[in-house]
């Protein structure tokens, strides 16, 4: 087996052998599927009882609403995947074993991204399937053959992966768990509040480029007219992640561990 494969295997062992992985996976599952069931059941009930107009309902998005909560868990796992190594001192053992630091960081990021992608797609498709079954009782369910539905459902897993990598990048850059978690939440949520300080016409433009607003267009089927397109939006989110990962990768070779 090649050296690179061994490195990926090593990082996979690390990821699967700590509790935080299972806790965050459990929270992400509960959030995306549990919350999805709740909101789809309520929507179906409201429509059946005439409390809600089914016109203009984004059925796909409704079933994927739990991803807004799941992203928090995935982002935290992304931060912890790297910051916990610094916090515990494990990083020194890691770098003694793999002094090619950038290669180590790449392997760790790749394993985390792949695990998140697979997990995220499973969650997204499951949430879609269960949610549409519930919405079908109100005759508003859609299938993966409907326009945009397959892209949005695949996009749900991609979105979680991108948010996870944003957390990973911030964790690698700041190396301190509490600081990195704060920065992650600030970038994902607090920026929205800050844009309210801008003049309204600026704000209305800028707000579309914030990481969550841009990225989640990938699982919206009915898009607000001024929002970014699904793939453009996801790309913007990826740029935020890269903006953290690239300096982290440059600095890791130079900083004392």
């Amino acid at each position, binding site marked *: 087996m090649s050296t690179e494969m061994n490195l990926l295997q090593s990082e996979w*062992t690390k990821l699967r*052998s*700590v509790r935080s992985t299972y806790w965050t996976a459990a929270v992400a599952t509960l959030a995306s599927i549990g919350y999805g069931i709740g909101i789809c059941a309520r929507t179906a009930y409201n429509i059946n009882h005439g409390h809600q107009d089914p016109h203009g309902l984004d059925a796909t998005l409704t079933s994927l609403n739990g991803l807004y909560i799941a992203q928090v868990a995935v982002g935290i796992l992304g931060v912890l995947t790297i910051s916990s190594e610094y916090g515990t*001192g494990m990083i020194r*053992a*890691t770098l003694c*074993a793999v*002094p090619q630091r950038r290669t180590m960081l790449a392997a760790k990021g790749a394993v985390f991204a792949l695990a998140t992608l697979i997990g995220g797609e499973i969650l997204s498709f499951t949430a879609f399937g269960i949610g549409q079954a519930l919405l079908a009782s109100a005759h508003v369910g859609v299938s993966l053959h409907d326009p945009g539905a397959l892209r949005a459902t695949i996009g749900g897993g991609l979105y979680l992966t991108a948010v996870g990598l944003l957390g990973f990048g911030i964790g690698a850059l700041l190396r301190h768990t509490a600081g990195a978690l704060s920065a992650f939440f600030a970038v994902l949520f607090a920026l929205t509040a800050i844009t309210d300080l801008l003049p309204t016409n600026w704000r209305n433009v800028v707000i579309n480029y914030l990481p969550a607003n841009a990225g989640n267009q990938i699982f919206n089927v009915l898009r607000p007219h001024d929002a970014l397109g699904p793939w453009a939006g996801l790309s913007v989110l990826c740029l935020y992640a890269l903006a953290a990962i690239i300096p982290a990768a440059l600095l890791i070779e130079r900083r004392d561990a």
Partner: protein
Amino acid sequence: MIDVCELSKRFGKTVAVDGLTFTVKPGQVTGFLGPNGAGKSTTMRMILGLDAPTAGAVTIDGRAYRSLRQPLHEVGAVLEVRAVHGGRSAYNHLLCLAQSNSIGRRRVEEVLDIVGLRDVARRRVGRFSLGMSQRLGIAAALLGDPPILLCDEPVNGLDPDGILWIRTLLRDLAAEGRTVFVSSHLMSEMALTADHLIVIGRGKLLADASTTEFIRTSSHDYITVRAANPLALAELLRRAGATVHDEPDGDQPALRVAGLGGTAIGDLAAQHGIPVYELTPHQASLEAAYMQLTHDHRDFAAKSEEHVQ
């Protein structure tokens, strides 16, 4: 073979390591000695490529650590306690390190046996005692069966059994022809473990010698003399060429005499009719030699003395 050449490390205004040059040779235990804050750990970290030197270089068999591929096969390092994720089991901790260097699961089992942790291999490392953590660190260092071993303060906080175990292990590994480099601030421990000593203080090299040579050259034998008229005797001894001080230890006033043998002191006292009650020769210990050498080179003297206790 570890070659340290003109190595310096500065943290802001603090100079942690200051132009160190020495070589660590195979086949013996080399002790790396100095008070706390002398720069031992920083030097170790530079050897392992964790910290970048401000100036100078370190090579392992001619190559920089950062250029080694799968270095666990060449260098094993026991870092300060708990360079591990506390939530991981001992087995998984070793497994992830092993996998990164293409080392198989069988070797993980083997090193767990060598350090005696097989029964607790599935337990979370965070619950380990200090002694178990040290054993785990050694297990990790042995994974690649490396010809070079570095241990940073391996006996810190261990009980006598654990200390004896590590001492024996390090001596055995050196006897197999490996390079063994062990840091400690405990002189007494190094006296028992090390064949060769590298002593530093405030980042500077103070001594680089075999342990026996170090004791012989760095400290002087002396004799404690208790006599009826110490003032007069002190004067006579000085005239005879001895160095005389008041004995700082002991509850009765006495003289500490260096540079003159017991027989000469006794004869001199007899000739002048001064009764002598005690003549106690003192052999230099490594502890004393170390204290003398590092006396002017300690940082945080009070703190390090606390640790020595």
